[in-house]
Protein backbone atom coordinates (compact mmCIF):
# COMPACT_ATOMS: atom_id res chain seq x y z
CA UNK A 1 0.00 0.00 0.00
CA UNK A 2 1.35 3.36 -0.97
CA UNK A 3 0.79 6.34 1.27
CA UNK A 4 1.45 9.95 0.37
CA UNK A 5 0.60 13.19 2.03
CA UNK A 6 -0.58 16.39 0.50
CA UNK A 7 -1.37 19.74 2.07
CA UNK A 8 -4.95 20.67 2.82
CA UNK A 9 -6.04 24.19 1.97
CA UNK A 10 -8.83 24.33 4.53
CA UNK A 11 -7.09 24.03 7.86
CA UNK A 12 -4.18 22.69 9.80
CA UNK A 13 -4.92 19.02 9.42
CA UNK A 14 -3.45 17.21 6.47
CA UNK A 15 -5.45 14.90 4.23
CA UNK A 16 -3.71 11.66 3.60
CA UNK A 17 -4.06 9.90 0.30
CA UNK A 18 -4.25 6.14 0.49
CA UNK A 19 -4.11 4.00 -2.59
CA UNK A 20 -5.92 0.66 -2.57
CA UNK A 21 -5.41 -1.76 -5.41
CA UNK A 22 -5.37 -2.60 -8.29
CA UNK A 23 -3.89 -5.74 -6.75
CA UNK A 24 -5.73 -6.01 -3.48
CA UNK A 25 -7.56 -9.10 -2.24
CA UNK A 26 -10.70 -7.24 -1.29
CA UNK A 27 -11.27 -5.49 -4.60
CA UNK A 28 -12.85 -8.50 -6.35
CA UNK A 29 -10.43 -8.38 -9.22
CA UNK A 30 -8.48 -5.46 -10.53
CA UNK A 31 -10.05 -2.35 -9.13
CA UNK A 32 -8.21 0.65 -7.77
CA UNK A 33 -9.62 2.97 -5.18
CA UNK A 34 -7.86 6.14 -4.12
CA UNK A 35 -9.17 7.61 -0.89
CA UNK A 36 -8.30 10.82 0.89
CA UNK A 37 -8.62 10.54 4.63
CA UNK A 38 -8.68 13.03 7.45
CA UNK A 39 -7.89 11.07 10.56
CA UNK A 40 -10.15 8.03 10.31
CA UNK A 41 -12.75 9.67 8.09
CA UNK A 42 -12.85 9.44 4.33
CA UNK A 43 -12.96 12.89 2.78
CA UNK A 44 -13.04 11.90 -0.87
CA UNK A 45 -12.81 8.72 -2.88
CA UNK A 46 -11.90 8.21 -6.50
CA UNK A 47 -12.48 4.80 -8.10
CA UNK A 48 -10.31 3.83 -11.06
CA UNK A 49 -11.48 1.10 -13.38
CA UNK A 50 -10.48 -0.22 -16.78
CA UNK A 51 -7.76 -2.69 -15.82
CA UNK A 52 -9.82 -5.50 -17.29
CA UNK A 53 -11.09 -3.61 -20.33
CA UNK A 54 -10.99 -6.10 -23.19
CA UNK A 55 -13.16 -4.19 -25.62
CA UNK A 56 -15.87 -6.85 -25.52
CA UNK A 57 -18.42 -4.57 -27.15
CA UNK A 58 -16.15 -3.90 -30.10
CA UNK A 59 -15.20 -7.58 -30.37
CA UNK A 60 -18.90 -8.43 -30.70
CA UNK A 61 -19.03 -6.40 -33.91
CA UNK A 62 -16.60 -8.81 -35.54
CA UNK A 63 -18.35 -12.05 -34.57
CA UNK A 64 -21.48 -13.80 -35.74
CA UNK A 65 -24.46 -13.79 -33.41
CA UNK A 66 -23.87 -17.34 -32.24
CA UNK A 67 -20.24 -16.54 -31.47
CA UNK A 68 -21.08 -13.44 -29.47
CA UNK A 69 -22.64 -15.64 -26.77
CA UNK A 70 -19.19 -16.84 -25.75
CA UNK A 71 -18.09 -13.24 -25.25
CA UNK A 72 -21.09 -12.59 -23.03
CA UNK A 73 -20.09 -15.55 -20.86
CA UNK A 74 -16.99 -13.61 -19.96
CA UNK A 75 -18.69 -10.39 -18.91
CA UNK A 76 -20.13 -11.36 -15.57
CA UNK A 77 -18.05 -14.45 -14.95
CA UNK A 78 -19.86 -15.24 -11.72
CA UNK A 79 -23.30 -15.38 -13.37
CA UNK A 80 -22.50 -16.52 -16.90
CA UNK A 81 -25.90 -17.93 -17.77
CA UNK A 82 -27.68 -14.70 -16.90
CA UNK A 83 -25.47 -12.83 -19.38
CA UNK A 84 -26.05 -15.41 -22.11
CA UNK A 85 -29.77 -15.15 -21.52
CA UNK A 86 -29.81 -11.37 -21.93
CA UNK A 87 -28.08 -11.47 -25.29
CA UNK A 88 -30.13 -14.36 -26.66
CA UNK A 89 -33.38 -12.71 -25.57
CA UNK A 90 -32.35 -9.48 -27.29
CA UNK A 91 -31.63 -11.25 -30.58
CA UNK A 92 -34.87 -13.24 -30.32
CA UNK A 93 -36.86 -10.09 -29.63
CA UNK A 94 -35.37 -8.41 -32.69
CA UNK A 95 -36.07 -11.46 -34.85
CA UNK A 96 -39.57 -11.89 -33.40
CA UNK A 97 -38.71 -15.48 -32.54
CA UNK A 98 -40.93 -17.65 -30.35
CA UNK A 99 -38.95 -19.81 -27.95
CA UNK A 100 -40.42 -23.23 -27.06
CA UNK A 101 -41.80 -23.40 -23.54
CA UNK A 102 -39.48 -26.11 -22.37
CA UNK A 103 -36.43 -24.09 -23.40
CA UNK A 104 -37.72 -21.08 -21.45
CA UNK A 105 -38.24 -23.18 -18.34
CA UNK A 106 -34.75 -24.66 -18.61
CA UNK A 107 -33.36 -21.14 -18.96
CA UNK A 108 -35.23 -19.86 -15.93
CA UNK A 109 -34.20 -22.80 -13.74
CA UNK A 110 -30.56 -22.50 -14.67
CA UNK A 111 -30.49 -18.71 -14.37
CA UNK A 112 -32.07 -18.80 -10.93
CA UNK A 113 -29.57 -21.45 -9.85
CA UNK A 114 -26.85 -19.20 -11.17
CA UNK A 115 -28.27 -16.36 -9.12
CA UNK A 116 -28.00 -18.48 -5.99
CA UNK A 117 -24.45 -19.48 -6.90
CA UNK A 118 -23.54 -15.84 -7.41
CA UNK A 119 -25.10 -14.75 -4.12
CA UNK A 120 -23.36 -17.62 -2.34
CA UNK A 121 -20.04 -16.30 -3.57
CA UNK A 122 -21.06 -12.87 -2.33
CA UNK A 123 -22.02 -14.36 1.02
CA UNK A 124 -18.68 -16.06 1.50
CA UNK A 125 -16.57 -13.16 0.33
CA UNK A 126 -18.59 -10.63 2.26
CA UNK A 127 -18.07 -12.56 5.46
CA UNK A 128 -14.35 -12.43 4.84
CA UNK A 129 -14.48 -8.71 4.21
CA UNK A 130 -16.26 -8.18 7.49
CA UNK A 131 -13.60 -10.24 9.23
CA UNK A 132 -15.17 -13.70 9.42
CA UNK A 133 -13.26 -16.51 7.73
CA UNK A 134 -15.78 -19.33 8.11
CA UNK A 135 -18.62 -18.16 5.78
CA UNK A 136 -16.55 -18.61 2.65
CA UNK A 137 -16.27 -22.33 3.35
CA UNK A 138 -20.04 -22.66 3.62
CA UNK A 139 -20.71 -20.36 0.68
CA UNK A 140 -18.38 -22.28 -1.57
CA UNK A 141 -19.82 -25.61 -0.49
CA UNK A 142 -23.25 -24.57 -1.79
CA UNK A 143 -21.80 -22.95 -4.88
CA UNK A 144 -19.86 -26.11 -5.66
CA UNK A 145 -23.04 -28.19 -5.58
CA UNK A 146 -24.69 -25.87 -8.09
CA UNK A 147 -21.67 -25.87 -10.32
CA UNK A 148 -21.48 -29.64 -10.47
CA UNK A 149 -25.10 -29.68 -11.59
CA UNK A 150 -24.19 -27.11 -14.27
CA UNK A 151 -21.36 -29.36 -15.32
CA UNK A 152 -23.81 -32.21 -15.78
CA UNK A 153 -26.17 -30.05 -17.86
CA UNK A 154 -23.93 -27.79 -19.90
CA UNK A 155 -20.62 -29.60 -19.79
CA UNK A 156 -18.79 -26.72 -18.14
CA UNK A 157 -18.57 -25.29 -14.67
CA UNK A 158 -18.30 -21.74 -16.00
CA UNK A 159 -18.38 -20.32 -19.54
CA UNK A 160 -21.25 -22.62 -20.45
CA UNK A 161 -22.27 -21.38 -23.91
CA UNK A 162 -25.48 -23.31 -23.28
CA UNK A 163 -28.22 -20.80 -23.99
CA UNK A 164 -28.51 -20.28 -27.73
CA UNK A 165 -30.54 -18.02 -29.98
CA UNK A 166 -33.92 -19.77 -30.21
CA UNK A 167 -33.55 -22.06 -27.21
CA UNK A 168 -30.83 -24.01 -25.46
CA UNK A 169 -28.06 -26.26 -26.71
CA UNK A 170 -29.63 -29.60 -25.78
CA UNK A 171 -32.22 -31.09 -23.49
CA UNK A 172 -31.54 -31.73 -19.82
CA UNK A 173 -29.91 -35.02 -18.83
CA UNK A 174 -32.23 -37.78 -17.67
CA UNK A 175 -31.28 -37.63 -14.01
CA UNK A 176 -31.77 -33.86 -13.85
CA UNK A 177 -35.14 -33.79 -11.99
CA UNK A 178 -33.77 -36.12 -9.34
CA UNK A 179 -30.51 -34.20 -8.96
CA UNK A 180 -32.34 -30.89 -8.84
CA UNK A 181 -34.76 -31.95 -6.12
CA UNK A 182 -31.83 -33.19 -4.03
CA UNK A 183 -30.02 -29.94 -4.72
CA UNK A 184 -32.92 -27.66 -3.79
CA UNK A 185 -33.35 -29.49 -0.48
CA UNK A 186 -29.63 -29.16 0.20
CA UNK A 187 -29.63 -25.50 -0.80
CA UNK A 188 -32.62 -24.70 1.37
CA UNK A 189 -30.87 -26.21 4.38
CA UNK A 190 -27.59 -24.62 3.32
CA UNK A 191 -29.07 -21.12 3.06
CA UNK A 192 -30.63 -21.48 6.51
CA UNK A 193 -27.31 -22.61 7.88
CA UNK A 194 -25.48 -19.69 6.30
CA UNK A 195 -28.15 -17.36 7.60
CA UNK A 196 -27.71 -18.67 11.12
CA UNK A 197 -23.96 -18.42 10.91
CA UNK A 198 -23.59 -14.78 9.93
CA UNK A 199 -26.77 -12.71 9.62
CA UNK A 200 -27.43 -11.91 13.27
CA UNK A 201 -23.87 -12.27 14.48
CA UNK A 202 -23.27 -9.34 16.78
CA UNK A 203 -19.90 -8.45 15.36
CA UNK A 204 -21.20 -8.69 11.81
CA UNK A 205 -24.10 -6.40 12.73
CA UNK A 206 -21.67 -3.91 14.25
CA UNK A 207 -19.63 -3.92 11.05
CA UNK A 208 -22.57 -3.50 8.67
CA UNK A 209 -25.57 -1.83 10.35
CA UNK A 210 -25.88 1.83 9.48
CA UNK A 211 -22.75 1.74 7.32
CA UNK A 212 -22.66 3.06 3.76
CA UNK A 213 -26.27 4.16 3.68
CA UNK A 214 -27.95 5.51 0.57
CA UNK A 215 -31.52 6.75 0.33
CA UNK A 216 -34.02 5.56 -2.25
CA UNK A 217 -34.14 8.78 -4.32
CA UNK A 218 -30.34 9.00 -4.36
CA UNK A 219 -30.09 5.37 -5.40
CA UNK A 220 -32.45 5.94 -8.33
CA UNK A 221 -30.55 9.08 -9.33
CA UNK A 222 -27.28 7.12 -9.47
CA UNK A 223 -28.91 4.42 -11.56
CA UNK A 224 -28.45 1.82 -8.84
CA UNK A 225 -30.26 -1.41 -9.61
CA UNK A 226 -30.65 -4.88 -8.21
CA UNK A 227 -30.13 -5.73 -4.54
CA UNK A 228 -28.50 -2.35 -3.67
CA UNK A 229 -31.56 -0.48 -4.98
CA UNK A 230 -34.04 -2.78 -3.27
CA UNK A 231 -32.06 -2.52 -0.04
CA UNK A 232 -32.72 1.23 -0.19
CA UNK A 233 -36.45 0.51 -0.04
CA UNK A 234 -37.33 0.82 -3.73
CA UNK A 235 -39.54 -1.97 -5.02
CA UNK A 236 -38.06 -2.56 -8.45
CA UNK A 237 -37.22 -5.86 -10.05
CA UNK A 238 -37.09 -6.24 -13.82
CA UNK A 239 -38.53 -9.74 -13.50
CA UNK A 240 -41.74 -8.12 -12.27
CA UNK A 241 -41.77 -4.53 -13.52
CA UNK A 242 -40.80 -5.33 -17.13
CA UNK A 243 -41.15 -9.14 -17.34
CA UNK A 244 -39.01 -10.96 -19.86
CA UNK A 245 -38.96 -14.60 -20.91
CA UNK A 246 -41.64 -16.41 -18.83
CA UNK A 247 -41.19 -14.69 -15.47
CA UNK A 248 -44.81 -13.55 -15.48
CA UNK A 249 -45.86 -17.17 -14.87
CA UNK A 250 -44.30 -17.43 -11.41
CA UNK A 251 -45.46 -16.26 -8.06
CA UNK A 252 -42.56 -15.05 -5.94
CA UNK A 253 -41.68 -12.30 -3.51
CA UNK A 254 -39.24 -9.42 -3.87
CA UNK A 255 -37.29 -8.70 -0.70
CA UNK A 256 -36.93 -4.99 0.04
CA UNK A 257 -34.71 -3.34 2.66
CA UNK A 258 -35.44 -0.39 4.90
CA UNK A 259 -32.31 1.66 5.56
CA UNK A 260 -30.17 1.07 2.48
CA UNK A 261 -27.15 0.18 4.58
CA UNK A 262 -24.64 -2.64 4.12
CA UNK A 263 -26.63 -5.09 6.22
CA UNK A 264 -29.78 -4.48 4.18
CA UNK A 265 -27.85 -5.08 0.97
CA UNK A 266 -26.56 -8.31 2.45
CA UNK A 267 -29.88 -9.52 3.74
CA UNK A 268 -31.82 -8.71 0.55
CA UNK A 269 -29.53 -11.17 -1.20
CA UNK A 270 -30.06 -13.87 1.41
CA UNK A 271 -33.82 -13.59 0.97
CA UNK A 272 -33.47 -13.47 -2.80
CA UNK A 273 -31.83 -16.88 -2.75
CA UNK A 274 -34.89 -18.31 -1.02
CA UNK A 275 -37.17 -16.68 -3.58
CA UNK A 276 -35.06 -18.14 -6.39
CA UNK A 277 -35.69 -21.58 -4.94
CA UNK A 278 -39.42 -20.82 -4.97
CA UNK A 279 -39.20 -19.95 -8.67
CA UNK A 280 -37.17 -23.07 -9.45
CA UNK A 281 -39.70 -25.33 -7.75
CA UNK A 282 -42.62 -23.74 -9.60
CA UNK A 283 -40.76 -24.02 -12.89
CA UNK A 284 -40.02 -27.69 -12.27
CA UNK A 285 -43.71 -28.32 -11.67
CA UNK A 286 -44.88 -26.44 -14.75
CA UNK A 287 -42.26 -27.79 -17.14
CA UNK A 288 -43.42 -30.30 -19.73
CA UNK A 289 -41.56 -32.36 -22.33
CA UNK A 290 -41.14 -30.78 -25.73
CA UNK A 291 -38.63 -29.29 -28.12
CA UNK A 292 -35.81 -27.21 -26.60
CA UNK A 293 -35.02 -25.03 -29.59
CA UNK A 294 -37.02 -23.10 -32.17
CA UNK A 295 -36.32 -23.71 -35.82
CA UNK A 296 -33.59 -21.21 -36.58
CA UNK A 297 -31.10 -20.98 -39.37
CA UNK A 298 -27.57 -21.91 -38.43
CA UNK A 299 -26.45 -18.36 -39.06
CA UNK A 300 -28.89 -15.90 -37.53
CA UNK A 301 -29.61 -12.77 -39.54
CA UNK A 302 -31.93 -10.49 -37.55
CA UNK A 303 -33.76 -7.80 -39.51
CA UNK A 304 -32.49 -4.23 -39.68
CA UNK A 305 -33.34 -2.38 -36.54
CA UNK A 306 -32.45 -2.01 -32.93
CA UNK A 307 -33.56 -3.46 -29.64
CA UNK A 308 -32.96 -2.73 -25.99
CA UNK A 309 -33.64 -5.53 -23.59
CA UNK A 310 -33.12 -5.60 -19.87
CA UNK A 311 -32.95 -8.54 -17.53
CA UNK A 312 -32.47 -8.93 -13.82
CA UNK A 313 -29.02 -10.38 -13.32
CA UNK A 314 -27.84 -11.16 -9.77
CA UNK A 315 -26.20 -7.75 -9.69
CA UNK A 316 -29.07 -5.74 -11.11
CA UNK A 317 -30.48 -4.45 -14.37
CA UNK A 318 -28.42 -6.08 -17.13
CA UNK A 319 -29.32 -4.38 -20.41
CA UNK A 320 -28.31 -5.12 -23.97
CA UNK A 321 -28.63 -2.51 -26.71
CA UNK A 322 -28.30 -4.22 -30.04
CA UNK A 323 -28.20 -2.49 -33.42
CA UNK A 324 -28.51 -4.73 -36.46
CA UNK A 325 -27.87 -3.83 -40.08
CA UNK A 326 -29.40 -7.04 -41.37
CA UNK A 327 -26.11 -8.91 -41.69
CA UNK A 328 -24.88 -11.94 -39.74
CA UNK A 329 -22.87 -9.79 -37.36
CA UNK A 330 -24.20 -7.16 -34.95
CA UNK A 331 -23.54 -3.57 -35.99
CA UNK A 332 -23.22 -2.37 -32.41
CA UNK A 333 -23.64 -4.06 -29.06
CA UNK A 334 -23.78 -1.98 -25.92
CA UNK A 335 -23.89 -3.70 -22.59
CA UNK A 336 -25.47 -1.89 -19.70
CA UNK A 337 -23.63 -3.65 -16.92
CA UNK A 338 -25.27 -3.36 -13.50
CA UNK A 339 -21.94 -3.38 -11.64
CA UNK A 340 -20.72 -0.46 -13.75
CA UNK A 341 -23.65 1.73 -12.74
CA UNK A 342 -23.73 0.48 -9.15
CA UNK A 343 -20.06 1.25 -8.66
CA UNK A 344 -20.70 4.92 -9.41
CA UNK A 345 -22.62 5.22 -6.17
CA UNK A 346 -19.55 4.09 -4.21
CA UNK A 347 -18.28 7.65 -3.95
CA UNK A 348 -21.58 8.67 -2.43
CA UNK A 349 -21.62 5.77 0.04
CA UNK A 350 -18.02 6.31 1.12
CA UNK A 351 -18.52 9.96 1.98
CA UNK A 352 -17.86 10.57 5.71
CA UNK A 353 -17.38 6.83 6.30
CA UNK A 354 -14.56 5.40 8.38
CA UNK A 355 -11.60 4.15 6.44
CA UNK A 356 -11.98 0.73 8.07
CA UNK A 357 -15.45 0.47 6.53
CA UNK A 358 -14.32 1.17 2.97
CA UNK A 359 -13.84 -2.51 2.18
CA UNK A 360 -17.16 -3.49 3.77
CA UNK A 361 -18.99 -0.86 1.71
CA UNK A 362 -17.27 -1.83 -1.53
CA UNK A 363 -18.05 -5.49 -0.87
CA UNK A 364 -21.72 -4.79 -0.25
CA UNK A 365 -22.17 -3.54 -3.83
CA UNK A 366 -20.91 -6.93 -5.07
CA UNK A 367 -19.14 -5.86 -8.24
CA UNK A 368 -17.68 -8.13 -10.87
CA UNK A 369 -14.91 -6.38 -12.72
CA UNK A 370 -15.46 -8.46 -15.84
CA UNK A 371 -18.65 -6.56 -16.54
CA UNK A 372 -17.56 -3.24 -15.08
CA UNK A 373 -14.69 -2.96 -17.55
CA UNK A 374 -16.09 -5.18 -20.31
Amino acid at each position, binding site marked *: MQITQQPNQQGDTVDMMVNMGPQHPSTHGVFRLVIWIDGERIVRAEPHIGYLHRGSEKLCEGEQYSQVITLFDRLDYVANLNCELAFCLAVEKLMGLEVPDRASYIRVILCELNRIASHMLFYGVYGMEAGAITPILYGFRERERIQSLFEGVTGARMMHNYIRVGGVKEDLPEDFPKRLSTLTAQLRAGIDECDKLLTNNEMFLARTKGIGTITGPDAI*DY*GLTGPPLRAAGVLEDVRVSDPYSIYDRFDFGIPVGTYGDCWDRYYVRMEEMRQSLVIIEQAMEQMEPGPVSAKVRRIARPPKGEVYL*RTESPRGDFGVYLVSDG*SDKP*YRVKVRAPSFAN*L*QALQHMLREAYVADAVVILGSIDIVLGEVDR
Partner: protein
Amino acid sequence: MEKPQKREREGPEASVALDDKGQALSVLLPDVLSEVDIEVGAALDEVVLTVRPADVTAVCRTAKDDPRLAFDYLRCLSAVDYIDRLEVVYHLFSLQKRHKLVIKTSVPPDNPKVPTVVSVWAGANWFEREAHDLFGIEFEHHPNLEPLLLYEGFEGHPGLKSFPFHDYDEW
Protein backbone atom coordinates in the same frame (compact mmCIF):
# COMPACT_ATOMS: atom_id res chain seq x y z
CA MET B 1 -5.50 2.23 -43.45
CA GLU B 2 -8.64 1.74 -45.47
CA LYS B 3 -11.51 4.06 -44.88
CA PRO B 4 -14.42 2.09 -43.42
CA GLN B 5 -17.42 1.71 -45.64
CA LYS B 6 -20.89 1.66 -44.30
CA ARG B 7 -22.31 -1.81 -44.67
CA GLU B 8 -25.46 -1.56 -46.79
CA ARG B 9 -27.53 -4.66 -47.07
CA GLU B 10 -30.92 -5.42 -48.46
CA GLY B 11 -33.12 -6.96 -45.84
CA PRO B 12 -36.34 -6.77 -43.94
CA GLU B 13 -36.76 -4.19 -41.20
CA ALA B 14 -37.84 -5.06 -37.70
CA SER B 15 -41.56 -4.52 -37.22
CA VAL B 16 -42.90 -1.90 -34.84
CA ALA B 17 -45.39 -2.87 -32.15
CA LEU B 18 -45.96 -0.27 -29.45
CA ASP B 19 -47.96 -1.25 -26.40
CA ASP B 20 -50.72 0.93 -24.91
CA LYS B 21 -48.34 2.90 -22.75
CA GLY B 22 -46.04 3.52 -25.72
CA GLN B 23 -48.91 4.80 -27.85
CA ALA B 24 -50.15 7.08 -25.10
CA LEU B 25 -46.61 8.38 -24.67
CA SER B 26 -46.10 9.13 -28.37
CA VAL B 27 -49.31 11.17 -28.35
CA LEU B 28 -48.30 12.97 -25.16
CA LEU B 29 -44.73 13.88 -26.15
CA PRO B 30 -45.37 16.62 -28.76
CA ASP B 31 -47.76 18.17 -26.26
CA VAL B 32 -45.27 18.28 -23.38
CA LEU B 33 -42.28 19.30 -25.50
CA SER B 34 -44.08 21.83 -27.69
CA GLU B 35 -41.27 24.41 -27.46
CA VAL B 36 -38.52 22.14 -28.79
CA ASP B 37 -37.95 20.79 -32.28
CA ILE B 38 -38.58 17.07 -31.90
CA GLU B 39 -39.44 14.08 -34.01
CA VAL B 40 -41.36 11.15 -32.55
CA GLY B 41 -40.84 7.71 -34.02
CA ALA B 42 -40.69 4.13 -32.86
CA ALA B 43 -38.32 1.19 -32.92
CA LEU B 44 -39.67 -2.25 -32.05
CA ASP B 45 -41.48 -1.62 -28.76
CA GLU B 46 -39.86 1.67 -27.79
CA VAL B 47 -40.92 5.25 -28.46
CA VAL B 48 -38.00 7.09 -30.04
CA LEU B 49 -37.61 10.82 -29.67
CA THR B 50 -35.08 12.50 -31.94
CA VAL B 51 -33.81 15.90 -30.83
CA ARG B 52 -31.06 18.33 -31.79
CA PRO B 53 -27.85 18.10 -29.72
CA ALA B 54 -28.34 21.60 -28.30
CA ASP B 55 -31.74 20.66 -26.83
CA VAL B 56 -30.61 17.45 -25.09
CA THR B 57 -30.25 18.84 -21.58
CA ALA B 58 -33.54 20.76 -21.74
CA VAL B 59 -35.46 17.79 -23.11
CA CYS B 60 -33.97 15.41 -20.53
CA ARG B 61 -34.72 17.86 -17.74
CA THR B 62 -38.36 18.07 -18.85
CA ALA B 63 -38.54 14.28 -19.26
CA LYS B 64 -37.44 13.85 -15.67
CA ASP B 65 -39.30 16.72 -14.01
CA ASP B 66 -42.62 16.77 -15.83
CA PRO B 67 -45.06 14.71 -13.73
CA ARG B 68 -46.72 13.29 -16.85
CA LEU B 69 -43.39 11.81 -18.02
CA ALA B 70 -41.42 11.31 -14.76
CA PHE B 71 -38.45 9.50 -16.31
CA ASP B 72 -36.46 9.14 -13.11
CA TYR B 73 -34.21 6.28 -14.18
CA LEU B 74 -31.60 6.42 -16.94
CA ARG B 75 -31.46 2.83 -18.15
CA CYS B 76 -28.53 3.25 -20.47
CA LEU B 77 -26.52 5.83 -22.35
CA SER B 78 -24.80 4.59 -25.48
CA ALA B 79 -22.98 5.94 -28.49
CA VAL B 80 -23.25 4.39 -31.93
CA ASP B 81 -20.93 5.11 -34.85
CA TYR B 82 -22.87 5.27 -38.12
CA ILE B 83 -19.74 6.58 -39.92
CA ASP B 84 -21.52 9.60 -41.42
CA ARG B 85 -22.75 10.58 -37.95
CA LEU B 86 -22.36 9.65 -34.31
CA GLU B 87 -25.51 8.95 -32.40
CA VAL B 88 -25.94 9.31 -28.66
CA VAL B 89 -28.82 7.23 -27.34
CA TYR B 90 -30.49 7.69 -23.96
CA HIS B 91 -32.71 4.85 -22.77
CA LEU B 92 -35.08 6.06 -20.07
CA PHE B 93 -37.54 4.35 -17.79
CA SER B 94 -40.01 5.70 -15.30
CA LEU B 95 -40.21 3.74 -12.07
CA GLN B 96 -43.44 5.54 -11.15
CA LYS B 97 -45.31 5.38 -14.45
CA ARG B 98 -43.66 2.20 -15.77
CA HIS B 99 -43.23 3.53 -19.29
CA LYS B 100 -40.10 3.81 -21.36
CA LEU B 101 -38.57 6.19 -23.86
CA VAL B 102 -35.52 6.46 -26.08
CA ILE B 103 -33.99 9.86 -26.80
CA LYS B 104 -31.58 10.11 -29.71
CA THR B 105 -29.36 12.85 -30.98
CA SER B 106 -26.89 12.89 -33.86
CA VAL B 107 -23.62 14.76 -34.07
CA PRO B 108 -21.12 15.09 -36.93
CA PRO B 109 -18.06 12.84 -36.45
CA ASP B 110 -15.57 15.68 -36.93
CA ASN B 111 -17.07 17.83 -34.17
CA PRO B 112 -18.98 15.58 -31.77
CA LYS B 113 -20.29 17.83 -29.01
CA VAL B 114 -23.27 17.06 -26.82
CA PRO B 115 -24.23 18.83 -23.58
CA THR B 116 -23.96 16.65 -20.51
CA VAL B 117 -26.95 15.25 -18.63
CA VAL B 118 -25.06 14.58 -15.38
CA SER B 119 -27.03 17.39 -13.77
CA VAL B 120 -30.25 15.52 -14.60
CA TRP B 121 -29.23 11.96 -13.64
CA ALA B 122 -26.07 11.56 -11.56
CA GLY B 123 -25.76 8.06 -12.99
CA ALA B 124 -24.96 9.44 -16.44
CA ASN B 125 -21.47 10.39 -15.26
CA TRP B 126 -19.55 7.21 -16.06
CA PHE B 127 -21.63 6.40 -19.12
CA GLU B 128 -20.60 9.73 -20.61
CA ARG B 129 -16.98 9.22 -19.66
CA GLU B 130 -17.08 5.82 -21.34
CA ALA B 131 -18.60 7.27 -24.51
CA HIS B 132 -15.91 9.96 -24.45
CA ASP B 133 -13.20 7.31 -24.13
CA LEU B 134 -14.43 4.97 -26.80
CA PHE B 135 -16.07 7.35 -29.27
CA GLY B 136 -14.47 10.72 -28.59
CA ILE B 137 -17.74 12.47 -27.90
CA GLU B 138 -17.24 15.72 -25.99
CA PHE B 139 -19.86 16.10 -23.28
CA GLU B 140 -19.90 19.83 -22.62
CA HIS B 141 -19.87 20.97 -18.98
CA HIS B 142 -19.21 17.44 -17.73
CA PRO B 143 -17.67 17.70 -14.23
CA ASN B 144 -14.83 15.27 -14.86
CA LEU B 145 -14.28 14.04 -18.41
CA GLU B 146 -11.13 12.05 -17.61
CA PRO B 147 -10.27 8.71 -19.24
CA LEU B 148 -12.18 5.94 -17.46
CA LEU B 149 -11.64 2.64 -19.23
CA LEU B 150 -8.53 3.47 -21.23
CA TYR B 151 -5.16 4.19 -19.73
CA GLU B 152 -3.72 7.67 -19.69
CA GLY B 153 -2.09 8.63 -22.94
CA PHE B 154 -4.02 6.14 -25.08
CA GLU B 155 -4.42 7.56 -28.55
CA GLY B 156 -7.55 7.14 -30.63
CA HIS B 157 -11.06 6.04 -29.85
CA PRO B 158 -11.38 2.26 -30.04
CA GLY B 159 -15.16 2.19 -30.28
CA LEU B 160 -15.19 3.90 -33.67
CA LYS B 161 -15.59 1.83 -36.81
CA SER B 162 -12.42 3.47 -38.19
CA PHE B 163 -10.33 2.02 -35.35
CA PRO B 164 -8.85 -1.30 -36.45
CA PHE B 165 -9.14 -4.17 -34.04
CA HIS B 166 -8.31 -7.34 -35.88
CA ASP B 167 -5.03 -6.00 -37.21
CA TYR B 168 -4.15 -4.07 -34.09
CA ASP B 169 -0.52 -4.89 -33.41
CA GLU B 170 0.66 -2.90 -30.41
CA TRP B 171 1.31 -6.12 -28.47
